[in-house]
């Protein structure tokens, strides 16, 4: 394969009137587009030599058909010069810093020499600013008295001076300005940072206007057969019409006033043609009242040419649908519906080796009936790149057999997707590289994408209606990179912190917790039920035999999915950090010990298998590699799902029930807290409250109240928690780290607690009170958003309002945050995207500038690091010694 050509460099410059004319294929003078018969006027805006947009027609200039002809520029000769809006600031600067008579810079000759000597030094380019020069009032070259140049938005320039004590102003026409700019010598321009070889300043005053090709402003044909022209064409029509009228008036010797009006009108149209959002200029509007999208608007902004069509593009070979979970898939797999697999394809070169296989695919055609059928093909591509669409069914169009007979080596066949093909899978917002990973596909019934719930964390996906995108790589290189660099397996470790980002979630954690907590024994059928979907080849020796029946312990069951040679000792999520660790004898069974792949003690929970933590997985990756780690995730998720099904796990409204004694305790506790608050308010009102340093008495009171009520809420949680043990599913979820916390449980069973806005009790509302239900200036707990009920017991109307107030803050917060952090990330990406590690270990921009001499000061890849450390010394020592150190 020949190496593809690269564009070496792009140059920027202005178009001179000469360039515009040279480039032009047609002088446009006719303001209309099509005549009554629908043919374009020659010398009109749709002149056939400007390019073709109608299929079938040929371009008058290059003879190519629509699609191949890139279009050609035309031009309009303007009756009088007009200013280019984008350069008004430059023009103003030039008028102010150059002499109105001789055009030289208003600087002493020796200063000019000094600056032009600097000019060759690239670091001092554009040294001269308006401020350096403005002070001169008399030209040092020709001693001409300078006048003040005023500028009025959008395009008016005026000279001002004082005559007999009166301020006088006089308008500069674009022709005057052009004459003045023409006089500025090239050398002087260089000092101002203008390269006259490509950008003479007078070219910013337009005498001839380039007309873009029709391909750039295609007209669309509406349903009723009417043509609708592009905004640019509309604008050009206006320009030509005014230009024409201007010329006629000029030739007829119209009065100066009319000429000036027309000139201004022409200036307005050219201005809005360039930029329709100029300050001080009413935007040109479409007949419907919508502002026109002219040149500048096409380039600008998120959907503009740069960000919308050049940096990001729409693509083929992509699909999007709703996602749903399938725990029976591997994390590296992706279930796709047949309808998508039939639509999407992979190009396969025909060779002697595969021609028979491809022939049979062509014979299946584009409609594969069921997922178990062999895959079909959608297109056959001839060696001359002509595409033949395959048609199935029994109609006249059916060309399968004919094409199958035609193909020979050199052709390409667009084969449909089949099991095992590699695809890229993505969920927006794509905030990090794990938002796009490659999966191997598996055809499935129904109409959704199916993925293992364990890959949800990197995508940040859930199944409440999320949609995701799939892309099919079309070249061998793309497929190789997808499978070697972007696969799920390669992305288990997050480069953000050097730990696993894929791991068990929700029921995986509850399930594995229930399975491994404390000690239990399973019979052979039970063990086989649990491990049915895991990739296990044999059972170990039973842990005990009672009455001739072999039993395996729960820890043995979990050990079966662990690789041999795995040694680790750590404390689980449920560890409460007792001052003296009882190790294996821990009553919470939180001391985890795995020796040589045997789970000896401890409960497996979030810290062991969870996403973002996953201590076991982290160690497997480092000792056994990514592939084994992926297999472990698959086994672990399957084992945990089976465990939770085997043991059973439900949660209902009555799981939040407490007994009468607890309700009594909670009531007493909250009454007491409210009384305490009342007491503190009384102290404050008596002026006896000692303010905290740096706070007012009122602030101190608020803080005390928040504290008292917060503590009361927590104590209700303790009461509820002491009643609900590990038999309660919510407690299991909270303790194992699967979902929720004890706080959630407190709010469900005990007391919802204080609602807050900006970290303070709710104070806004009516004058002196939050809701009309309270007395004015009541500072009590209930009047400022304390909810003493629980979600289970139901909340009172006033509490309901407070809850809504507090809840809304959260919603507003999220909405604001997403936009702010999105912009921050865009800026960060833009600032850092060009950095890479060079072969010498330095970090450089792609331009070669060194940013760091050694990446991160030690050359360690954060992805491969052990949570930031270059080497996990403790882990290695522990794993060799097989004990905690």
């Amino acid at each position, binding site marked *: 394969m020949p190496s593809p050509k690269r564009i070496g460099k792009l140059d920027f410059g202005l178009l001179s009137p000469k360039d515009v004319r040279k480039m032009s294929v047609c002088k446009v003078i006719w303001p209309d587009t099509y005549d009554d018969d629908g043919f374009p006027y020659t010398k009109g805006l749709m002149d056939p030599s400007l390019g073709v947009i109608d299929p079938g027609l040929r371009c008058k200039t290059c003879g190519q058909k629509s699609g191949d002809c890139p279009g050609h520029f035309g031009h309009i000769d303007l009756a009088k010069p007009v200013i280019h809006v*984008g350069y008004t600031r430059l023009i103003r600067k030039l008028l102010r810093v150059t002499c109105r008579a001789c055009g030289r810079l208003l600087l002493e000759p020796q200063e000019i020499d000094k600056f032009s000597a600097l000019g060759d030094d690239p670091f001092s380019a554009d040294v001269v600013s308006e401020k350096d020069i403005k002070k001169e009032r008399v030209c040092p070259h020709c001693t001409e008295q300078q006048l003040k140049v005023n500028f009025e938005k959008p395009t008016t320039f005026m000279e001002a001076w004082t005559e007999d004590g009166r301020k006088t102003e006089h308008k500069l026409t674009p022709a005057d300005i052009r004459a003045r700019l023409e006089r500025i010598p090239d050398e002087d321009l260089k000092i101002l940072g203008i390269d006259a070889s490509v950008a003479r300043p007078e070219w910013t005053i337009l005498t001839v206007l380039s007309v873009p090709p029709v391909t750039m402003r295609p007209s669309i044909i509406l349903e009723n057969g009417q043509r609708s022209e592009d905004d640019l064409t509309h604008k050009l029509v206006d320009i030509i019409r005014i230009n024409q009228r201007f010329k006629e008036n000029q030739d007829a010797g119209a009065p100066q006033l009319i000429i000036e009006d027309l000139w201004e009108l022409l200036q307005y149209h050219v201005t809005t043609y360039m930029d329709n959002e100029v300050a001080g200029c009413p935007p040109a509007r479409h007949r419907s009242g919508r502002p026109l999208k002219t040149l500048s608007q096409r380039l600008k902004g998120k959907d503009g040419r740069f960000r919308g069509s050049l940096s990001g593009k729409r693509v083929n070979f992509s699909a999007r649908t709703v996602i749903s979970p399938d725990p029976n898939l591997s994390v590296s797999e992706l279930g796709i519906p047949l309808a998508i697999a039939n639509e999407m394809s992979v190009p396969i070169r025909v060779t002697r080796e595969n021609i028979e296989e491809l022939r049979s695919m062509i014979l299946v055609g584009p409609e594969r009936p069921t997922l178990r059928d062999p895959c079909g093909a959608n297109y056959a591509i001839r060696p001359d790149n002509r595409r033949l669409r395959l048609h199935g069914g029994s109609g006249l169009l059916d060309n399968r057999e004919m094409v199958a007979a035609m193909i020979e080596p050199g052709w390409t066949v667009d084969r449909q997707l089949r099991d095992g093909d590699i695809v890229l899978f993505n969920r927006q917002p794509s905030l990090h*590289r794990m938002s796009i990973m490659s999966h191997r596909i598996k055809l499935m019934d129904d109409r959704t994408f199916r993925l293992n719930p364990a890959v949800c964390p990197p995508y940040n996906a859930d199944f409440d209606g999320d949609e995701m995108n799939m892309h099919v790589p079309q070249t061998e290189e793309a497929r190789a990179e997808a499978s070697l660099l972007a696969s799920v397996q390669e992305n288990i470790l997050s480069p953000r912190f050097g730990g696993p980002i894929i791991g068990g979630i929700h029921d995986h954690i509850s399930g594995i917790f229930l399975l491994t907590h404390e000690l239990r024994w399973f019979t052979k059928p039970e063990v086989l039920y649990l491990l049915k979907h895991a990739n296990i080849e044999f059972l170990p020796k039973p842990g005990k035999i009672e009455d001739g029946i072999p039993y395996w312990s729960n820890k043995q069951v979990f050990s079966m999915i662990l690789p041999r040679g795995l040694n680790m000792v750590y404390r689980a999520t449920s560890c409460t950090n007792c001052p003296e660790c009882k190790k294996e004898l821990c009553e919470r069974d939180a001391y985890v010990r795995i020796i040589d792949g045997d789970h000896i003690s401890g409960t497996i929970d979030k810290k062991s298998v969870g996403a973002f933590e996953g201590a076991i997985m982290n160690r497997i990756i480092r000792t056994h590699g990514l592939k084994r780690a992926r297999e472990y995730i698959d086994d672990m998720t399957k084992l945990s799902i089976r465990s939770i099904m085997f043991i059973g796990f439900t949660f209902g409204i009555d799981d939040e029930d407490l007994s009468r004694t607890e309700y009594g305790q909670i009531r007493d506790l909250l009454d007491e807290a409210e009384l305490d608050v009342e007491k503190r308010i009384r102290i404050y009102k008596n002026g006896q409250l000692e303010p905290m340093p740096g706070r007012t008495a009122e602030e101190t009171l608020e803080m005390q109240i928040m504290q008292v009520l917060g503590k009361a809420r927590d104590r209700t949680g303790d009461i509820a928690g002491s009643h609900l043990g590990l038999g309660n599913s919510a407690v299991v979820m909270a303790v194992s780290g699967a979902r929720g916390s004890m706080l959630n449980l407190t709010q469900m069973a005990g007391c919802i607690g204080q609602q807050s806005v900006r970290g303070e009790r709710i104070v806004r509302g009516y004058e002196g009170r939050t809701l009309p239900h309270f007395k004015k200036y009541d500072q009590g707990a209930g009047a400022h958003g304390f909810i003493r009920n629980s979600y289970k017991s139901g909340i009172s109307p006033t509490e309901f309002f407070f809850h809504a107030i507090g809840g809304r803050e959260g919603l507003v917060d999220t909405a604001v945050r997403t936009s702010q952090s999105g912009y921050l990330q865009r800026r960060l990406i833009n600032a850092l*995207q060009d950095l890479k590690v060079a072969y010498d270990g330095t970090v450089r921009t792609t331009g070669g500038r060194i940013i760091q001499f050694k990446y991160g000061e030690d050359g360690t890849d954060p992805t491969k690091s052990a949570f930031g450390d270059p080497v996990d*010394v403790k882990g290695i020592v522990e794993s060799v*010694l097989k004990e905690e150190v």
Partner: protein
Amino acid sequence: MNEQYIETIDSYTLPETIHKLISDWLAQHEVDEEIFDRILRRLVRIHEADLPVKTHDQLITLILKKEEKGSPVTDDQFDEILKRVVNEYQSTRIEPCEAVGIIAAQSIGEPGTQMTMRTFHYAGVAEINVTLGLPRLIEIMDARREPSTPAMTIYLEDGFRDNRDRAREVSWDIEASPLHEFGDITTDMENMRVIVTLNKAVCDKRRIKVSEILERAPTKIRDRRHYRDFESEVDEQAGILRFLPKDQGSYQNLFQLVEHVRNVIVQGIDDIQRVVVRKESGEYILYTEGSNLKDVFEVEGVDTTRTRTNNISEISQVLGIEAARDAIIHEANSTLREQGIGVDVRHIMLVADMMCMDGEVKQIGRHGIAGEKESVLSRAAFEVTVNHLLDASIAHEHDELCGVTENVIVGQPIRLGTGDVRLVVKPMQPITKTGEN
């Protein structure tokens, strides 16, 4: 007790940290010849393995810990450990062509969605408000000249740090105190004047001379508060200051003057509104609201080596760009950590290095790094598209198409990762019959 061993250790040229670790350990533990030999042998091998400081320190500490417990690591185990450590070290090297910039940007940007927006939070000290979370992170990246809540953490020198009263004295030299805290201020409406009677006891307590206040108050009203329409008389003996507005007929002026007199800062540093003294890990630390690094450094008793501010541009001006880089890393890291988000420091370091690359702290965005890029297309694709294009043509700029955006725009492979490998394989030559070469 282990002098001869320590001497032996001294005779080896070991890195500083290793040397310190081992000699400290030897000073505290009884060892015999055998143990010492074993330790020394291993030490030399670890040193020869050429590992980073942190790694070999950890390794040595663990090995010494095992010795301490009386269950030393066996030679086989030690070999295995060292082999694994070296292997792991080699496998964690960064690969060439890695797009580290994008990874860093994603690693910092992605957790932004999980951060809180609550502007005010109470960090450690309940009395002082500090901006945290996403707004603070944005503030750091914006390289603002002044953070929305400037704050300092002032450490004290020996002799001050363990004495509450002396720490308090330092705080008085720092906290901006208005005149009304030092005495009574009365408005004499009849004679159109303001009378300040200083309280000697307060002045003594605050360790400031009465004469100093008398001198400072009028000048500061003129210089700092820019109010000049008054005259003042000093009665040094009684500690009385009289202020007379120039315009004797206007009560409005008198009241204006009273406000200025009441609030003029006569002691401390103007920018520092409040100082809180707290005891933390055995020493007194001053936390301040407001920041002025330069003036605080001149206060007696301040430990200039540890004192810090959250105003990065101030650090850059006072201490230089390297200190500013360090401050960016520290601030960003602590902001993220406070939110419970783990981000590798290397990412933050890269951002900080990028911001400080040119010797001044530059913003991440249009007015900084992104706006000063070489490539026209890249700048145009970021923000203010049209102006960049227009200016580029006037200056006859070139786009060398080195960066990512430019190459994406023109539609060719980017020079990063696999796109940066310019390896061309020559097709194998058919083997010639002569068998030469």
